[in-house]
């Protein structure tokens, strides 16, 4: 029994060590991921609205994805800015100029 426990302990230890190594090696990519859905939507909605000149409904249909839930979208038309919240992350994009379109804040 003791031997079995020891083996299980070693296996669990190895798995934890592998997981920790994976996390460490990929921390940059993993930690930045939650910002992706909101920044993607903010930038593409901004350009859709203020560069392509589409309606809010058309832009929301364009951007729609059915995987990650979106907690909120703010359309500040006066300042030509779009803010999106998802996965505990908030990102905004704003319109710069006729030539340069939109950029993420």
């Amino acid at each position, binding site marked *: 029994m003791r031997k079995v426990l020891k083996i299980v302990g070693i296996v669990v230890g190895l798995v934890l060590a592998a997981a920790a190594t994976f996390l460490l090696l*990929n921390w940059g990519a993993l930690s*930045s991921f939650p910002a992706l859905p909101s920044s*993607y939507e903010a930038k593409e909605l901004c350009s859709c609205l203020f560069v*392509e000149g589409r309606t809010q409904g058309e832009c929301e249909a*364009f951007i729609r994805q059915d995987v990650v839930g979106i907690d909120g979208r703010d359309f500040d038309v006066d300042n030509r800015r779009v803010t999106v919240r998802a996965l505990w992350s908030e990102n905004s994009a704003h319109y*710069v100029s006729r030539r340069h379109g939109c950029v993420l804040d």
Partner: protein
Amino acid sequence: MARTPSRRRAPRLFFAPRSLLSAGRSGLSVGLLTGLVGLVGLGLSSGGCGSAAATEEPTPVVLEGAPSFEVRTAREWPTAGWPSATPAEVGLDPAAIATLEDYLFARNGDDVDRRGQRTNAFVLIKDGKLVAERYARGYSADTAMLTWSVSKSIANTIVGCAVHEGLLCLNDTIGQHYPPAVDGGVGSVRVTDLLQMSSGIDWSETYETSPVFSSVMGMLYTRGRADMAAFVASRGLAADPGTRWSYSSGDTTLLMGVLRTILGDERNADYPWVALFDRIGMKTAVLERDAAGTFVGSSYLYASARDLAKWGMLLLADGVWEGERLLPEGWVRYTLTMAPAYYNTELTPGTVDDNPGAQVYLNHGDPARDVPPPWPAAPADTFAAQGHWGKSIFVFPSLDMIAVRLGDDRIYACDIPGHDDKCEPDPAKAYSKNHYLGLLMAAVPGAVGVGTTPVAKGGE
């Protein structure tokens, strides 16, 4: 399975732009794709753009010669607007054009299921005249439209203008111009390596298939967005420069960063307009930048379909517009030459149909490896700018014809490699590049496709 370039793999594992930008891509899997290759660089030897100051080994590129097709220079230039004609007046079959438009604008789905064709714009130029044009889904002739990776081909042309002005040379290394890449392997990457997507820079061009580890998603939206070029340069090398072709938005964007460094912020901000857009009348052009001021280049060009066709016209004229040379002699020929490293690159279902020139796609195939040309219905000299979700500028030099089609297709026809899980089996009911090209060629009496019986060959 027939072949059709462009996006493959359609898994909708994630939300986003499955390939916001590309057309070809390496799609491959995540970061571990590195390794492999290390073969011999073929070097494109032809003339040269001045200084070959770079390193010893790579064969310097020489810019010289006209393209292999008949250069079209004597015509009414469309700078202020396209002259128009009826299809019959330029020898096209009006009934076949009508059939083509019926196909492009048939809707077999709605905006919820996103099935079927979702064509936003179609413009056809023949003999320098606008002969067919149609819009849908709320778009019009004046709308600046998203082009995703079509942007890359126009980025090539902007760089060509800078080379013509003597601001940089194809054989220059990045390290010569771009301080963040002075040290380390990335500094030895040449301008031509970036243009031919053969930089060897460690890169994962995946979209929703692997969003967490995607270099391009990281560049555009998270880790790299503040300074995209610096993010690319920080990736390091996965292969020796010039030895491996791998679809990379990073290569294009890094080149835009190099250009910004050379020009300085103030001049850079207007350079694409001064050097190109204003010259050829691309009045609708919008080119977005990152937070640091670098043009993204690999994506985010917005322009009307009519204006995008002017880019095709410039290349048909070998870079000379209204009698003025905007691109160096030899630039168009170079752009339409296969990237040498492609011949060393492992073929996959995704890459077998990508015949890369310098930020454009060609119709050459790879005879040595029994790979037929990707667009059998189209002439051998056909080339294209391609972007995700069905966006393209096809140019047919021997026919003096340019076709712009901008779509927002989310479900392609099944004859696109890799699109086998959620595709539309009937090519008449969804966007299929070869179906489109076949119908287009049917409108041109005497047009000869490079091969009408594509061999089923490819990745698997």
